[in-house]
């Protein structure tokens, strides 16, 4: 709980502190869980792209709205898990999520004052740039020019997925992930 704010608050008992910690670590834990779920054998077409899009949406959302619960080490771990699950060259997913986090934190002062549409447009810009970056890095690491189609599909899928995830995450942001509710 934020100590800088004045006011009367309950005594920080062990359970209350545990509750607060759980709420603070919820965004990272939820993102990792979502990664594991999207890697499950659903046989959806484009499931690998969906997995990438889900991780990117979550990291971007929490980095804008609650960067304290999505610190760079957590982003690094999420990216590492995504790369291992994806059988991608290790580091590619990590770096793209870290860049997304950095951009979101840099822009958050402006973004949090704007309506949803502008946040979404910013996300689309980030997702497109990162799909390109991933394509470039994977091409460089495998020493061959990969087809650009999957990168484009990945960007479009991320753009489409973000509003849906944002509705759910915004609800979580106000309720279960709010340390002040502890």
């Amino acid at each position, binding site marked *: 709980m934020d100590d800088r704010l004045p006011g009367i608050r309950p005594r920080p008992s062990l359970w209350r502190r545990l509750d607060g910690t759980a709420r603070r670590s919820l965004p990272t834990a939820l993102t990792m869980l979502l990664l594991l779920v999207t890697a499950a054998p659903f046989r959806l077409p484009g499931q690998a792209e969906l997995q990438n899009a889900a991780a990117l949406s979550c990291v971007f959302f929490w980095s804008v709205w609650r960067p304290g619960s999505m610190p760079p080490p957590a*982003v690094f771990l999420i990216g590492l898990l995504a790369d*291992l699950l994806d059988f991608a060259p290790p*580091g590619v997913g990590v770096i793209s999520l870290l860049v997304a986090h*950095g951009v979101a934190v840099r822009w958050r002062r402006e973004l949090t004052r704007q309506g949803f549409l502008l946040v979404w447009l910013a996300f689309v810009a980030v997702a497109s740039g990162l799909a390109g970056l991933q394509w470039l890095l994977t091409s460089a690491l495998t020493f061959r020019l990969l087809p650009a189609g999957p990168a484009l599909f990945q960007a479009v899928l991320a753009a489409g997925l973000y509003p849906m995830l944002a509705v759910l995450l915004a609800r979580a942001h106000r309720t279960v992930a709010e340390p002040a509710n502890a």
Partner: protein
Amino acid sequence: MIRLSVPLRQALAKLTLPVFIVASFALMLLGKADALLAERARMAVADALSPIYAALAEPLSGVHRGIDGLRNLATVYDDNARLREENERLRRWQSVALVLDAENVSLKSQLRWIPDPAPSYVTARVVADAGGVYARAVLLSLGPNHSVAKGQIALDDRGLVGRVTELGARSARVLLLTDMNSRVPVILENSRARAILAGTNGARPRLMYWAEGVQPAEGERVVTSAEANTFPPGLPVGVVRYSASNVPEVLPLARLDRLEVVRLFDYGLRGVVPPETSVARLPERRR
């Protein structure tokens, strides 16, 4: 908790992101320099998750079967008519095949033909897609004391699926023949011309380097070739189809988009030995 002054804490907070970005570049280089380490880490994660996914695969495949059943219900009349016609055609073929088989047996007995040893195989469940955005592969769930080795050949009930490329304690990754990095030596069945089947990450791998003077014919069957000693001869791979831009491609016989169970065959071929197993594991596997 260590108490730090506010400016120091802010400076540290500003530094973490660049440090982690540098770390991820280091990770990228490490993954490239020590491919074995990256592979071990991946297979450790896959090993941990494959029992969970195997447990999940059972109800999920039930759901898929239910959806397929509903879809089939709509076309049941057409399917029935088509199957009846196909059955007639196959019956004619069966009699031809029986005659040829008998003839083959009698000819082989006269020629003192040495029969190929029957290969041993294990059957494994496909538990997850292990391809990612830029690869085509599947993850298999195996028992803890499996005898699967790298380079073994995966087939489904119709044809060639791919080869085992990565191996964990409880799971294995099979690179599909549609993957960009897959190269399969094949023979065009009618012309007996050799070629290479190269994956493109698309649904249809491409034929390359066929012999001069031979043109792959539309609808011609493609089977594996024993060249390079990685595949046994004659495994069914697919059928030649020309793409819109007149490039010969192969439509795989195996249903690669809906693999549920594959058989892993040990033909004892060590033509391309994976780097890790070359020295340490070969003697114990030789029979």
